């Protein structure tokens, strides 16, 4: 869990539900031995500044480039994007071939919940909690869009990253976390052999 700021304990509870062990990451050294990373919702500007101070952003990017699976929700999705539409520059992890628009649905008074069809997860739809949420403005060929709302992609994945503009950790629906943990398990199984440290079991 990237634990600079934001909804950390909610993701920890969701990950525990699907059988993962978690640790909080605040500095680059905390990444050692981890097999997967979740970047939670929060304020992406705060993440960028505080994580930037300790060199955590390039460290995270390095691990993802080396194949570590990552799940990002809301601000976590922003941090993983290669670019931000219509906004000033801010420090990001980057690496995912998407451009996101921050606060795309408007201020808090326009925050909402709605059912979101995620075909890769089958029925029923997920209950999407959108809080000052971003959307995906543009996605490259490496990106598989997992869900749309109002004509905009709001969840997507590539080979290592799963992102959602909404907050599955605020509901009891663990399907997206399970998708992530299955990836972590597969990737850890491929990288380590029996008996090594794994973040999910």
């Amino acid at each position, binding site marked *: 869990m990237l*634990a*600079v*700021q*934001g*909804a*950390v*304990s*909610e993701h920890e*509870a969701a990950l525990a539900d699907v059988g993962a062990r978690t640790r909080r990451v*605040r500095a680059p050294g905390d990444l050692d031995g981890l097999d997967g990373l979740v970047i939670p*919702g*929060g*304020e992406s*500007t*705060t993440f960028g*500044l*505080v994580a930037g*101070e300790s060199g955590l952003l390039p460290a995270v990017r390095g691990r993802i480039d080396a194949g570590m699976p990552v799940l990002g929700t*809301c*601000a976590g999705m922003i941090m993983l994007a290669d670019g931000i539409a219509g*906004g000033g520059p801010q420090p990001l992890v980057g690496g995912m071939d998407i451009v996101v628009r*921050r*606060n795309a649905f*408007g*201020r*808090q*008074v*326009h*925050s*909402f*919940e*709605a*059912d*979101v*069809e995620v075909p890769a997860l089958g029925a*029923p*739809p*997920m*209950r999407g*909690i*959108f*809080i*000052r949420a971003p959307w995906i403005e543009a996605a490259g060929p490496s990106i598989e869009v997992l869900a749309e*709302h109002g004509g905009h992609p709001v969840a997507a994945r590539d080979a290592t990253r799963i992102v959602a503009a909404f*907050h599955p950790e*605020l*509901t*009891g*629906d663990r399907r997206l976390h399970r998708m992530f943990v299955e990836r972590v398990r597969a990737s850890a199984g491929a990288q380590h052999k029996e008996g090594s440290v794994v973040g999910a079991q």
Partner: protein
Amino acid sequence: MSDEVATNGTQERATGTETVKAGLARMLKGGVIMDVVDADQARIAEDAGACAVMALERIPAEIRKAGGVARMSDPEMIVGIQEAVSIPVMAKCRIGHHAEAQVLQALEIDYIDESEVLTPADEASHVDKRAFTVPFVCGATDLGEALRRIVEGAAMIRTKGEAGTGNVVEAVRHMKTITQGIRRVVSATAEERFAIAKEMAAPLDLVEWVGANGRLPVVNFSAGGIATPADAALMMYLGAEGVFVGSGIFLSEDPPARARAIVEATTHWDDPAVVARVSRGLREAMPGIEIGDLGDSGLLQTRGW
């Protein structure tokens, strides 16, 4: 309050639900919310890593000095701050002032603080916050007060402390009082919880919820008197889920550096080496006030019912 959110078979958007309102506070956790009086200060706060700003005309220490009736800020100034930053913008209405709250909602403020720092408009009732789409944060000094605000619809609580003093002692008292109240409810029997609900003047179902879960049903920040990075770290150590800093930043000698340091200390509160590093060379903190020197009539924390 509930972790279970049901699907309703429609892609229609439901705004202002309990999950959506309390959810924004969850996204602010571990962060620092800073009082700002203009767009320049708001940008300084955002650039320092604040997770939100509180737009108000005068910081609490100046309100104290000015005396008279303190009211909601000029919408012109609030809009200027909204346009200057991309992080959430909060603003204060007077306790019980439904119309000020409606104005703030019309301005699309992200969170309304029904605040004891302003002069109360109603000496019996607070705003019925359930009727609003915009979420509210309210101050509390003990568990009963926190639960009364939550049943009225508050989606976030902050301990009151004593605003504008630069003295953390009241923030500590209120945070400890709330956590002691929670521990008491947790260890109480079902029969005792009836008596506790009566004594705390709090709804029984919320008292029972706290007993079963060992925490408040909404996020709880600390406020009122935080002036240094170590103050922020102390409040996190005592169980705050984040901090509000009012006068402490822009009344200090070097606001950008102090703002940045308090953000770092809030994230890394359990790493004293980081708190020590960021505390170096910040120049003077705001001048502090001894609580005893305020007298009973000078206390803001006793406003709210």
